[in-house]
């Protein structure tokens, strides 16, 4: 796939296939892991777990067989950075997986590709075949004795919840994509009960760059608590929707200017499971310590009804909840009913407040990230846009 002329300081900086692997295997496993710890890289899927810690735990787990899994089940509404990485920068992703395999001592890597991206399958398979030919995959990679590693691709079948790592592992094992109880964590018992590290596509891409340029170089970008840069999938009401690489710590207002978003009313940070910020909070920064996101940014202008946005999100969650735990299965249905009540004017404030409490219960009582984060948009939109929804022209009994 042809590369677009994308600009960025880290991920989109120049990189040649195999470079990162060669540099990594010159060093000992501990040394390259040390570089990643120095980089303070955190998981790019959104949860932000330190990558070095995850890999150290997987490396330390006792087992002959370990797995590296790349989570390419990008399903969060408004996210499409993995699509760009896999189509235009597969070398970064696959090299990162090989480096991961080297560090934790795995011989097998699996790319879990969402079913909706089946159209990429052929080109990715061809790419892997090319890597095998050049000894970047297979036996004794680049002549490194004792280091064998290969990557296979498994297709998903249209389930958002499989982006959750334990649900993804269940799906790989041929089960329904239902999240597991933790502990045990995948780093100890993952795929086929073997130690497994599951990382986001973008995390692996960052690792390839860190391998070459070092952890300190990476940590120079971004903020103290959120090092490096981030790919943001920016869509909605702006002139240039696309994937942008920005350092962590970028202000939302700066980002809006960059993408040409005039008269933005609201910015949804983190997709449907994220939070919705009104104009008064556009001075907040994109970072794990402030407005955290796995990369999804959706911009809504003055003409959009926020209640429509909320309804779309809640319909999404009702459909995608796997149904295994009650708070998520019933909770999301109740929240959607609440939105419909507001829509047709049959609500009471008392009941809506009860639903907000229900949302808070879901955040603590749900089994996995889906139910824990699905009430975020319900709570933040009804709170931040209550004037429009309950008193303005956005609702039925408003003015």
């Amino acid at each position, binding site marked *: 796939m042809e590369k677009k002329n994308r600009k960025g300081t880290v991920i989109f900086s120049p990189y040649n296939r195999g470079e990162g692997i060669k540099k990594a295997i010159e060093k000992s496993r501990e040394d390259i892991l040390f570089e990643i710890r120095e980089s303070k890289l955190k998981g790019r899927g959104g949860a932000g777990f330190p990558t070095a810690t995850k890999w150290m735990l997987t490396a330390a787990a006792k087992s002959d067989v370990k797995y590296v899994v790349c989570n390419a089940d990008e399903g969060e509404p408004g996210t499409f950075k993995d699509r760009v990485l896999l189509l235009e920068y597969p070398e970064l992703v696959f090299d990162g997986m090989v480096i991961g395999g080297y560090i934790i001592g795995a011989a097998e890597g699996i790319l879990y590709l969402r*079913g909706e991206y089946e159209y990429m399958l052929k080109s990715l398979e061809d790419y892997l075949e090319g890597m095998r030919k050049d000894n970047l995959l297979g036996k004794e990679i680049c002549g490194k004795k004792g280091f064998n590693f290969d990557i296979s691709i498994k297709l998903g079948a249209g*389930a958002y919840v499989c982006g959750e790592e334990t649900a993804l592992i269940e799906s790989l094992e041929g089960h329904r*994509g239902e999240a597991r109880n933790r502990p045990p964590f995948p780093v100890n018992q993952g795929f086929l009960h073997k130690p497994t590290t599951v990382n986001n596509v973008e995390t692996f891409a960052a690792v390839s760059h860190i391998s070459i340029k070092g952890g300190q170089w990476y940590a120079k970008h971004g903020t103290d608590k959120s090092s490096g840069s981030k790919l943001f999938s920016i*869509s909605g009401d702006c002139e240039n*929707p696309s994937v942008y690489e920005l350092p962590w710590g970028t202000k939302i207002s700066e980002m809006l200017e960059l993408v040409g978003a005039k008269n933005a009313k609201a910015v949804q940070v983190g997709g449907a499971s994220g939070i919705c910020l009104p104009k008064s909070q556009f001075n907040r920064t994109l970072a794990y310590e402030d407005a955290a996101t796995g990369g999804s940014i959706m911009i809504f202008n003055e003409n959009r009804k926020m209640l429509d946005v909320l309804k779309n999100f809640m319909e999404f969650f009702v459909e995608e909840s796997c149904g295994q735990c009650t708070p998520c299965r019933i909770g999301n249905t109740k929240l959607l009913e609440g939105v419909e009540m507001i829509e047709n004017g049959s609500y009471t404030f008392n009941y809506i407040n009860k639903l907000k409490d229900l949302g808070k219960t879901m955040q603590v009582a749900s089994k996995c990230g889906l139910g824990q984060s699905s009430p975020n948009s319900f709570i933040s939109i009804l709170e931040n846009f209550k004037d429009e929804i309950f008193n303005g022209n956005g609702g039925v009994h408003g003015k």
Partner: protein
Amino acid sequence: MLVLEKNALTEEIEQLVEKYGRDRSALLPILQDIQRKHRYISDFAQQEVARMLDIHPVEVYSVISFYAFLNTHPKGKNIVRLCQTISCDFQGKSAVAKAIERELGISFGETTRDNKITLEYANCLGMCDQGPALLVNDKVYSHLTPEKAVQIISEIK
């Protein structure tokens, strides 16, 4: 189902099991291949897969029912999935949806009478920067207008 058809299907599934293995983790790839070829996974196919992987048929059914891209009843020869998530919605999904419905004479969730096209909604296809977007089988189309969408639909064989 004719005995001949059954035998052919059994043979086919045997080959798939040969290819992917008898382990439980082979279940999804096997089902995906059956789905791709037959456009659904029949009761008989489910039972045969279960027998060969040595699991209960209900396990197979429960997996199929979980995933949006697997189904137990026949669908059209081609599946058209329109993205219904917010970014596509705000870029004109409804107009595209109505145009397709008018042109095919069916609603979402239905199949045309000649079994050529099944029309469905999908959640975020990851084309939010180029919406509205739709998938025809595994091919993706973006920047749709009602006219362009109908053009694409009419070219489906």
